[in-house]
C-alpha cells in the first residue's frame, strides 16, 4: 500500500519543489505510547511527510526503538522525513542544527523552528528570517514554522522559502485556528503560495476547517499522539482532511445573515385558514 496516493485524488497533488505529494496531512512522531502505535498511526494517516527531531546525546543512548520504527514505516509507505530544529532560540543555533539534521537524515528538507517566547513558543520572526536566508543559501528546502503575520511571511518568501507554515494556535494547545481573519488574509494575499497550518490543531474539525479555508495541508502531532486511540485518530484526521479539501474544491456556499428557504414552494403550500 502506498498511502501517499490515497489521501486525495491523484490529480490533486501539491508540490514541494519537484516533489509531488498526494496526502495533505503531515504528521509528527513525538509522544506516542509505543513504537508500534506510532507505526500504525503513520500508516493509518496516509501521510507523505513525517517530522522528526534531533536531541543532544546525553550519555545514555537509545530511544526505545521509535526512530527505527519511523524508518521502517517510511520504507513501507514511501513517506519522506522532515527534520525540525525544535528547541532553537537563535538563528545561529537553528542553522547549525539544520546542518546536523541534513547529515543525520540525509535530506535537505528542514522544518525551521526558532522560538522567541518560552510561554507561547511563538516563532521569532527576526531570527527565523536570518536562518531562512542562510539555509536557503546553503541549499536547504526550508519549511518555516511562522506566525500568521502577512508581512513577515512575505519576507520569508523573499528569503527563498518555497512555502509557509503559519501557526493555527500555540504548539500542543489544541485550540484550533485562533485567528481566522489573519489566516484568511494570508490565503487571500498569497494565493499562489503553498500554505500549511502547523501547530495548534486539536480536532479533525479544525483540520477540515483549514482545508476548507484553502490551506494546502496541515501538520500536527499532539492531536494524534495524545488521543486515547492514536491510530483511529490518525484515520479520523485523514478523513477530515480529505473532506476539507473536497469541500474547498467543491466551493463552500456563502454565509447569509437570514434564512433562505431551501424547498422551492411558492407562497403558502396550503390555503387552510388563508385569506379567501
Amino acid at each position, binding site marked *: 500500500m502506498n498511502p501517499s496516493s490515497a489521501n486525495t485524488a491523484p490529480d490533486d497533488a501539491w508540490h514541494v519543489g519537484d516533489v509531488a505529494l498526494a496526502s495533505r496531512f503531515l504528521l*509528527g*512522531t513525538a509522544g*506516542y505510547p509505543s513504537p508500534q502505535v506510532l507505526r500504525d498511526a503513520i500508516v493509518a494517516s496516509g501521510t507523505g511527510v513525517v517530522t522528526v527531531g534531533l536531541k543532544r546525546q546525553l550519555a545514555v543512548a537509545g530511544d526505545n526503538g521509535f*526512530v527505527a520504527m519511523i524508518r521502517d514505516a517510511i520504507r513501507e509507505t514511501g513517506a519522506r522525513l522532515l527534520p525540525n530544529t525544535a528547541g532553537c532560540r537563535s538563528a545561529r543555533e537553528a542553522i547549525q542544527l539544520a546542518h546536523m539534521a541534513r547529515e543525520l537524515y540525509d535530506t535537505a528538507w528542514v522544518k525551521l523552528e526558532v522560538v522567541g517566547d518560552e510561554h507561547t513558543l511563538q516563532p521569532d520572526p527576526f531570527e527565523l528570517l536570518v536562518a531562512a536566508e542562510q539555509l536557503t543559501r546553503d541549499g536547504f528546502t526550508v519549511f518555516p514554522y511562522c506566525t500568521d503575520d502577512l508581512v513577515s511571511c512575505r519576507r520569508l518568501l523573499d528569503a527563498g522559502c518555497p512555502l509557509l507554515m503559519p501557526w493555527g494556535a500555540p504548539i500542543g494547545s489544541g485550540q484550533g485556528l485562533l485567528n481566522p481573519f489573519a489566516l484568511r488574509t494570508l490565503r487571500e494575499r498569497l494565493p499562489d503560495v503553498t500554505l500549511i497550518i502547523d501547530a495548534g490543531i486539536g480536532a479533525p474539525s479544525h483540520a477540515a476547517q483549514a482545508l476548507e479555508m484553502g490551506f494546502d495541508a496541515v501538520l500536527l502531532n499532539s492531536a494524534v499522539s495524545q488521543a486515547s486511540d492514536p491510530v483511529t485518530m490518525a484515520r479520523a484526521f485523514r478523513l477530515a482532511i480529505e473532506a476539507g479539501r473536497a469541500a474547498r474544491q467543491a466551493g463552500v456556499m456563502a454565509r447569509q445573515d437570514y434564512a433562505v428557504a431551501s424547498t422551492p414552494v411558492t407562497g403558502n403550500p396550503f390555503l387552510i385558514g388563508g385569506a379567501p
Partner: protein
Amino acid sequence: MNDTVSLPAETIEIRLDGQPRPVAAGTTLAALVASLGHAPAAVSTAVNGDFVPRGLRERPLAAGDVVLLFQPIVGG
C-alpha cells in the same frame, strides 16, 4: 632492563554534552565518537557551537572545546 618510564599521556579537559571530560591530548573528534561506542553515521557533532561534518572529524580537540553530539529522535 629498560629503565625508561613511559609518562602518562598529557591530558586535556573538554566539555562533552555539558560535562567535563578528560581526554588524551591529540584526541580527534572522530576518536572521541568511536570511544563512546557510536558508529560515525549514528551521531552528528558540533564543537564550540559549530557543526562539524562527519568528514572533518579528524581534527584534534583542544582544551576547553565544547563538544555536543546529536542523535535522531521523534519530533513534531
